């Protein structure tokens, strides 16, 4: 409670209590590193639990989540921020926590988010990858897999239950109904 109050005084943020252990904070991209530093130095959130990235393709943003933990009060802060999906760039925080470096490398590779000042090999998990960053939502992994890798033949005589019954009954499913068909 105090923490939220305190944070709100110092920064321009949205914050709410998520549950007994967790506090959710929403902040602007520019504030993130200073909030993290503040949390780390002033409030004892010295443990970076996790960093995550969510692709909200409809809103054209990436949501970055920083999860920090305070070993004394056992509280967790989830810090959310949104960055532009078309020109994704985020401040590098591996000066605050070293292991952020790994996360950032991963996001750079998987989402194409640039972290200016990040010192690391560009290739991290993938090798020789030339497509768009694969964790982006518009990357169709199944399509890519089907095009790239051969699927073993032998199963082409499969039939669809619905179609089989339609063949027997002569039912005609209108187009507007098809989106509610199974798969």
């Amino acid at each position, binding site marked *: 409670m105090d923490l939220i109050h305190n944070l709100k005084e110092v920064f321009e943020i949205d914050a709410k209590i998520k549950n007994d252990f967790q506090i959710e904070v929403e902040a602007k991209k520019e504030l993130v590193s200073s909030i993290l530093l503040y949390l780390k130095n002033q409030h004892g959130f010295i443990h970076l639990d996790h960093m995550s990235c969510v692709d909200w393709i409809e809103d054209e943003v990436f949501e970055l989540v920083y999860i920090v933990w305070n070993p004394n009060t056992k509280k967790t802060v989830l810090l959310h921020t949104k960055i532009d999906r078309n020109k994704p760039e985020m401040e590098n925080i591996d000066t605050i926590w070293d292991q952020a470096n790994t996360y950032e490398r991963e996001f750079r590779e998987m989402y194409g988010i640039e972290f200016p000042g990040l010192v690391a090999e560009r290739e991290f998990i993938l090798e020789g990858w030339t497509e768009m960053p694969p964790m982006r939502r518009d990357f169709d992994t199944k399509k890519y897999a089907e095009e790239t890798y051969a699927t073993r033949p*032998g199963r082409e005589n*499969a*039939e669809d239950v619905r179609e089989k019954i339609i063949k027997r009954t002569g039912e005609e499913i209108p187009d507007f109904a098809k989106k509610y068909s*199974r798969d």
Partner: protein
Amino acid sequence: MSILNLKGILTPLTALKQMGKEPHTINFPDEQKNISKIYRGFHHNDLDLCIGCGNCETICMNDAIDMISLAEIAGEPGDSGLRPRIDYGRCCYCALCVDVCPSGSLNMTSEFMKVTPDPYDFLMTPGKDNPEAVDKLSFTADMDTSLNLFDRVPMRELDPEERVKSFAEVFLGYNEEEARIEANRCISCGLCTENCPVHMHIPEYINAIANADDEAAIKIIYDNNDLPEMCGKVCTRRCEDVCALQVRGEAVAIRWLKGYATTRAENAEMIAEIVKPEVREPNQYKVGIIGAGPAGLTAGYYLALKGYDITIYEAQKDPGGMIMYGIPKYRLPYDSIQKQVDYMKKMGVKIHFNTKVGKDISFNEIYDNSDAVFMGIGLQDAWSLGIQDEDAEGVWSAVEFLGKANAGETPDIGKRVVVVGGGDVSIDCSRVSKRFGADVFQSYRRRIQDMPADPEEIEGAEQEHIHIMPQTIPTRVIKDEKGHVKGMEYLKAEMVSEGGGRPRPVAIEGSETIIECDAIIAAIGQKANYELLPKEIADKLEMVKDKIKVNEDRLTSIPKLFAGGDAVKFGNSDAISAIADGYAATKAIDKMLMGK
């Protein structure tokens, strides 16, 4: 640490004592450990129990399951004829397919070993390729562990004491939450569509309801059923008989869900706005339709959408035919039909009420002025009981009785009523009689479980304290001196099963019993009345027994005369079949006239 850690050197040497012990090794393959009782190995499928719903295929996120046709299995309603084949090059042995199998036919066995140099050898049709594995079933899903939701959301209904007092609707219908939960139970296999005479898009509209998209559901429903609200209340719902969940549990309440969705559209304008059907440009063809029953209305509506000039001739003053006059209002309120007919009228269907063909207008006039004629005249005349003194006063036919009741009149039936019959109509008669304050006895020749009526209706009747007298055969009507019914004599019957067929009631000699009553309602079926047809046509018209013979297109033996509904011999005699007839005739007429 000390310079010489003697303990640290000597203690580990105690490990050497293991040398003298028996090895822990299981000498595989000579001996084998017992495999767990619920081990998840290869699958086994009980091919007879399996209904080919494909739910296993759907849940499998690995695309490991294909549904394939097997030579020895032909499909039938309630069985797609397909059986799962599993690609063990995909399977991850998660057994989700077992947990979602509605029939419980697909199980896993404790067989897990397959070693081969041939990578194409990992396709297996469980049950066909490993029939012996039936003895090794291990991971199975019973009713408790299955992921299927076998219990239907109960339908709220009026209290029996309360409902016999008026003609208020008995079933209150699902509310939104109940409908969502119930719709979520559906596994979208589509087996039901085969048993539906109209082949409605059941999985699609249920999915739409589950996704809280009621408008889409209404639109999908109206695609091939123009009287869905009626169906949502009183359909014989043969779809539910073949529901995949019905094998082990309760079928999805398809009827109630349809009812829920359609009642969301409160009036004809709303229906029109939501459905917004594709209406073709008007063309020059005229189609005459005799009878505004479900068959006639359906044909009229869909032909109107296709741009034909439609005229419906109806003898009564209200549309709907049997659904209007034959179904009690506590099941199907008047507004319900009226709303849908209003909507159809908006779509260009013209209905001439109080126009009896053969009297007010001749059949030939319609036939000659139209490019096609559809005849949905239904069955008007009741079968008589065929027993002594049945012409006595106070012996009713069901049609007559229900017609009066639905017209708002109060038939004079006295205090004790005997209803003869076991179909839906007879139950309707009983329950209507009850609502008129009578004490009702229902006589049926066979056992209760043999009754063709909807079990739900029978249950409702029992709740309303209608005395069902199974295994009774009426033999005589007893009338008093004024010629009014005083009672009925009947024989008790026993069920004799001959040659493995359906058990037949045989009267027990000397078991004559007399039941006193003020009225007898005979609800043992109806027959058609073809008086409207001119003689030359009636002669040419081919019949099967006493029904009109039609082909698949519902075309009779007379050119451009189509027929549907109860009066034709095609499918069952119920409203949804009539709609199916109307819909099929629509397509045939369209094909005939537009040449496509």
